[in-house]
Every structure is written in structure tokens, then in C-alpha cells.
């Protein structure tokens, strides 16, 4: 079975490009050029040079000895938190800024939830001297103040999205509207493996460096690869080079919020149904009338009501397993990782750590957790929730 995108932009029954005609030229331009550019030697040299010298790749694969002892398996941490700007997001923005440059775009827009993608976009725009506008939900602007300040310091304009739940979904709507209004000079750097084809494939390719390095660093196959999923970019990057290795168990961890049986949750694959959101067919949280349900998570990076179409396909085809972790359990896991390994993870990543207790692990099992980002940006939440 193929887990890669087909030539029409579908992963099985999911994906596609359900775009308003207003975006057709932009998407067509990308569809026609992204692979040609990505596969060119010129792009590859520049991309890998920047990943090495600017992002700081390869990121280490660290054996977490105390966690390993506690959970009775080898627990390895892929240290994306050590990337420049503090999260895996920058791998994608480096790739997309090179693409935008080659397409002759002068203005960059992006959406952001927790702010990590916004910071990564503002960073590469500063590097390349391009104008940068980041849409961010009004509520997220409040809860992610340090990242808002970082984006501004990097020269980006942060525009609040004031509709709906005032979070990532609404920031995405506003960014798409901006793109509709500015079709010629603007490139939209989508931050996850969501949106119309070719974004899910394009972002996956830029993030695939994560699994490529894991494979090299492990010198063989791990038994488990675990990653948190909101839209699913870090998980897709961590899974990418293992998709056709059936012995590797792939586990995506989504945010259950207050619990999957409450209506305060962001567990899309656990509770969602097939539908079209943000121009692709995937699984999403919606009511019986097809209206999008507002998600909830303690983590601004995970409260998205949709998920990348590739993840929907991995779930439906049983290639990957998806688990849901509550706000409370994520906080516990964040404390445990901090105090047992000296690494404060991002709240998103903490969800991934939380499933260790639920797995039936053997001492010989090699488990990789993609440590997708560092927790500095979440210190306000940690301080408030943990009474620090």
C-alpha cells in the first residue's frame, strides 16, 4: 500500500485541493513547480547548507537513560528542540522560503498557533529580507506573549485573528483570505502538513529530514516512533522514512484536552469524521451539519480541529496508531521529562511523552520520541498550571 501522495494530491481517500477558484493560480503554480524545485541540485545544496549551518542539523539523538530505566525500554529523544528557534518548524520554513524565492515572491504570510511556526517564518524572512505577516488568533497572542515579541523583534507584523475561537483555525482562515487578496506577490508558508495539495506533501518532504537522521543515527530501525500531532508536521517528519518499514510502530499523540468524552478536546482522529476543511479532505471535528467544532487543548499548538490528510490515511489504513492525552497528563509528562532528563519540553511534545506509560514495552525495544520543541514558550502556562 502507498502512504505517499498520488499525482492528484490524494492519500487514499484524503487530501486533494478543494480551493476557491480565487486561489487556483497560486496552487497551480505551486503544484507545477514544487517538485522540480525541491529536486534540483541547486535547491538541495542550499537547503542542506542552511539546515546544517543555520538550523544546526543534524540534531542529536539522545538516549534518555532515566526514562529508559523507568519505562523498561531504550528511550531515545530526537532533539528537534535544539533546532534554531527552538522547534522542528524551522526545517519547513527554510525549505519554503527557498521555494518562495525561486518563485519570485516578495511577501510572505503565515499562520501560527503556539507561535513556533510564526517565529520560524519570521526568522527565515529576516534571513532573506522578505516582508513577513503572521496571522495569529487573538487568544493565542495572549497566551504566547514571548513568541509574539520574538516575531516582532524579527521584523514581522503579527495580525490578530478575531473570528471564531480566536485560535489557530481562525488564523488559518485569515491567512487564506490574505492570500486570496494578494495572489501574485505573496507566498503562504503553511506550517503543517495540512491545506490543499501540494502543501501536505511539500511540508512532509521538508520535515522528512527528521526521520532520515533518525534512521542514520540509529543505524537500523527503531521499534517505535512517537510524536505529537496537531496538524501533524513533526509526526510526519518523524514517520516519513519509516512508512514502508512495517516493523516500526508509528504512534501519533493528539490532545484530548479535558478528555475525549468532554466537549473540550482537540482529539481529531479519535472523535472526528471525514470532511473538507482548509481546502483538503481529511478527518475533522464537526457537528452533524458539517460546521467546524471549536477544539480545546492546553497547548496552543495542538488545538486545531483538523489534521493532515496523510495522517487520516495512516489511521484509516492502520499504518499508524493514534492516541489521545489529556491536558493534565501532558503536564505530568512535562514535569517528568524535565526532572528526569533535564529537558523542559514544549507542551505539544509533552503529550507524546505521556503515552510511554500506556505502551507494553520490552527491555529490548528501541523507542524514539520526537522532541519537537522546547518549553520556553510555555513557561507562563507551566507556571500557572503547576503553581511554580
Amino acid at each position: 500500500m502507498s502512504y505517499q501522495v498520488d499525482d492528484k494530491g490524494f492519500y487514499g481517500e484524503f487530501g486533494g485541493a478543494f480551493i476557491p477558484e480565487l486561489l487556483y493560480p497560486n496552487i497551480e503554480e505551486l503544484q507545477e513547480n514544487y517538485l522540480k524545485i525541491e529536486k534540483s541540485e541547486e535547491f538541495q545544496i542550499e537547503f542542506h547548507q542552511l539546515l546544517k549551518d543555520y538550523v544546526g542539523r543534524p540534531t542529536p539523538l539522545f538516549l534518555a537513560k532515566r526514562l529508559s530505566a523507568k519505562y523498561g525500554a531504550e528511550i531515545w529523544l530526537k532533539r528537534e528542540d535544539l533546532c534554531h528557534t527552538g522547534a522542528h518548524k524551522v526545517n519547513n520554513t527554510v525549505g519554503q522560503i527557498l521555494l518562495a524565492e525561486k518563485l519570485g515572491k516578495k511577501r510572505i504570510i503565515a499562520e501560527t498557533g503556539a507561535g513556533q511556526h510564526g517565529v520560524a517564518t519570521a526568522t527565515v524572512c529576516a534571513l532573506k529580507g522578505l516582508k513577513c505577516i503572521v496571522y495569529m488568533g487573538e487568544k493565542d497572542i495572549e497566551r504566547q506573549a514571548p513568541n509574539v515579541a520574538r516575531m516582532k523583534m524579527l521584523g514581522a507584523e503579527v495580525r490578530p485573528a478575531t473570528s471564531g475561537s480566536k485560535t489557530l483555525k481562525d488564523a488559518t482562515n485569515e491567512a487564506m483570505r490574505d492570500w486570496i487578496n494578494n495572489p501574485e506577490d505573496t507566498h503562504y508558508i503553511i506550517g503543517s502538513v495540512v491545506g490543499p495539495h501540494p502543501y501536505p506533501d511539500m511540508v512532509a518532504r521538508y520535515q522528512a529530514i527528521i526521520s532520515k537522521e533518525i534512521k542514520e543515527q540509529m543505524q537500523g530501525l527503531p521499534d517505535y516512533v512517537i510524536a505529537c500531532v496537531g496538524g501533524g508536521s513533526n509526526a510526519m517528519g518523524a514517520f516519513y522514512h519509516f512508512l514502508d518499514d512495517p516493523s516500526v510502530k508509528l504512534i501519533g499523540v493528539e490532545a484530548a484536552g479535558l478528555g475525549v468524552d468532554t466537549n473540550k478536546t482537540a482529539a481529531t482522529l479519535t472523535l472526528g469524521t471525514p470532511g473538507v476543511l482548509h481546502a483538503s479532505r481529511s478527518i475533522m471535528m464537526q457537528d452533524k451539519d458539517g460546521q467546524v467544532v471549536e477544539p480545546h487543548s492546553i497547548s496552543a499548538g495542538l488545538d486545531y480541529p483538523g489534521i493532515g490528510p496523510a495522517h487520516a490515511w495512516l489511521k484509516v489504513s492502520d499504518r499508524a496508531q493514534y492516541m489521545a492525552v489529556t491536558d493534565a497528563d501532558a503536564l505530568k509528562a512535562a514535569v517528568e521529562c524535565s526532572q528526569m532528563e533535564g529537558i523542559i519540553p514544549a507542551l505539544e511534545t509533552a503529550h507524546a511523552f505521556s503515552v510511554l506509560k500506556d505502551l507494553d514495552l520490552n527491555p529490548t525495544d528501541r523507542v524514539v520520541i520526537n522532541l519537537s520543541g522546547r518549553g520556553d514558550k510555555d513557561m507562563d502556562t507551566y507556571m500557572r498550571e503547576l503553581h511554580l
Partner: protein
Amino acid sequence: MTNKLTRLFSKKQKNLLNIFFTAGYPQLEDTTVILKALEDSKVDLVEIGIPFSDPLADGPTIQESSKKALENGMSIEKLFSQLEKFKNDNPDFDTPVLLMGYLNPVMQYGLDRFCERCAAVGVDGLIIPDLPMYSYQMGFQETFEKHNISNVFLVTPQTSEKRIKEIDANSTGFIYAVSSASTTGSKADFSAAADYLGRLRDMNLNTPVLTGFNIKNAQNFKDACNYVDGAIIGSEFIRQISASSDLNDTVREFVKSVKG
């Protein structure tokens, strides 16, 4: 049953005024009040928006009306029941009606069931902005045709001539020429659209062309009709009914102010 859109275009193709409003706005039961007032005011076509939580191609005015309509309790089922009652109460109603809605609520309702209900309550055409031509041809066209529902595609100033011709060949209603690269109602100046509408006119398309987005008043309407077969007013009409104390009066006065 006759498709009223087809009939309209077979006898009259100039200076057509199409008015858009959101179902269930300002109040839940206003849908049919506005519909009746529009027919009484002799508009040529009516486009009713199905509210959606995430209307990507719409600007703030229509987005806000969608949000309010959802809060009022509007849904596809509710809209069909309103239209069904209206049809029974107004057997002579003769104005072509289109529904504009985003793909996801239509898909959740079920495409075949949706088209069947459209035909039963007197809806003649659909505008689904996030249904691209490729997907229409692959999975929708057959169902639309089975129920005699016209499909309206959009074109923009960025749409290539080749694609416009393809859209022309695949259209059964009219072509919706978005006047500028924008979400609805977001740009003040309509005059910049002249070159593009002139290009469309000179292509001598088989399908009638109506232009929309940023048409606000009699002057814009007249300008648009110099180039194409008619125009669509949405955001400005929504603004008018939002502030209305008497919908019948507001609708009549607004249509008169545009058409003279």
C-alpha cells in the same frame, strides 16, 4: 421540471441583477421574507447563502452574517423547510434561486439528498466556491444533472484564457466573474475591473457572465452591465438589511436604487 435559470437566460441576458443574502439573517425566519421582497422588487435572480463556520472566500460582512445566522439556528435542513413552505405558500413564485454554500456542509448532508431537496423546493443552481472543476467533473456533475441543478463556476482576473474556455464548456448556469482578486466586499474600487470584464466580453463565451464582489450601487451595476450580462450584489445588501427596521421597505428601496 423547468430550470428557471435556463429559462431566464434563454429569454433575457442583459442587465441582470442578482442579489445575495445569507439564509437565517438577520433573524432566522427572515429568509423567505427577503426572498418574497426581492421577487416583488423584480430582481432577476436570487442567491441564498448557506451559513458556514469557516467561509474562506468571504469578507467580514458576509462572514459576520454567517456567524449570526448559525447562532440563530440556521442549517441546511432548516433552509430547505423554509423554502418548501415558501414554495407552497407562493405557487407563482418565478424568480430563479441559487444556493451558495461551502462544500463541507453539503457533503455532510449528502450530495444526492442535497440536490434532490434543491430540486424539490425550487432551487435552480448551486455555487460551491470550494468545489474545483476537477472534483465537480469526477464526482458531482452526474448528480447535479440528474436533478436538473445548474452549477456556477467562478473565474477571476487571474484565471487563464484556457481555463475560462474550459469553464465555459462545463458551465450550465452562468459564469461568476469575481471582479478582483479579493474576498467578498473587501475592495472599494470597482473601476479596476473594466479591463478584465472587457476581456471576458471579447471572448464571446457561450455561457452568460455575471460579475460580483465589490458591486455596491447603481453606478457599479451600470458599469458592470456595459461589459457582462449582469451583476451580483452581496455585502452591500447585507449591510442594508442589517440596519433595517422594515425589511420589505429596505429591500424595495435598495433594488430601486440600483436598477432605477
